[in-house]
């Protein structure tokens, strides 16, 4: 598979992970407010981790191409701030992994109190949103 095809898969899986994590966060907040959300949290309890893991695997697969074709060839020479911005995005994506997976797996159990689950799930979703926006911006500046 070419680097461009992998980049498109990375974007598609990224948005899948983003929306799954956001859905989970919304249901976790509603559960913390006392609404019955067990069914939705169980369903998203496997969708969100699967989407995030697939997206991360796809991202790691195109990372070498980014390092050579984008970072070394352009950003390091012409826009070092963009290289740092992309690094920050990668760190956010890395930290979102345990947050989304941990919240998704913990949400499958009906455990009180519910607000720690909501806090972890919302933080994971917020990190994914930030990483997605930075990723889109950097890709718009220099795609693979």
């Amino acid at each position, binding site marked *: 598979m070419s680097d461009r095809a992998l980049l498109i898969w990375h974007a598609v899986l990224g948005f899948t992970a983003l929306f799954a994590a956001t859905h989970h966060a919304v249901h976790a907040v509603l559960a913390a407010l006392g609404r019955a959300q067990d069914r939705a949290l169980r369903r998203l309890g496997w969708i969100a981790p699967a989407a995030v893991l697939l997206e991360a695997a796809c991202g790691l697969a195109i*990372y*070498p191409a980014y390092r050579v074709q984008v*970072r070394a060839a352009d950003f390091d020479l012409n826009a070092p701030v963009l290289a740092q911005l992309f690094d920050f995005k990668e*760190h956010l994506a890395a930290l979102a992994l*345990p947050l989304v997976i*941990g919240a998704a797996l913990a949400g499958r159990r009906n455990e009180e109190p519910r607000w720690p689950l909501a806090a*972890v799930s919302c933080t994971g979703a917020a990190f994914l949103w930030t990483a997605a926006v930075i990723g889109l911006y950097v890709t718009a500046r220099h795609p693979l």
Partner: protein
Amino acid sequence: MRTALAGIAAFAAAYLISGTLQLPVPVYDPLSRELFFARAVSGVAMRYPGDLALASAAGIAAAALARLLPPQGGLGVAAAGALSLVALDVLFYLSRLLASL
């Protein structure tokens, strides 16, 4: 939830320590297509996947340990502790980004 929080806390701590202390991790050089262990990287060599693997291993190990141990302290304290470690990571990497501006 305790298991997840232990995993998150260990992941955040290991990820920060691995990057800042430059612990030896698997490093991949996409030009020579070589995989080796190293502390510092140069050129296009990348240690990000190695840091991620190390932190993931720490997170999984901590989660497995938390599953075996009896629960200690409140869930709120555990959540606050885990999220504080994550916030510390974000602040550190944000400071590096802002320093480059």
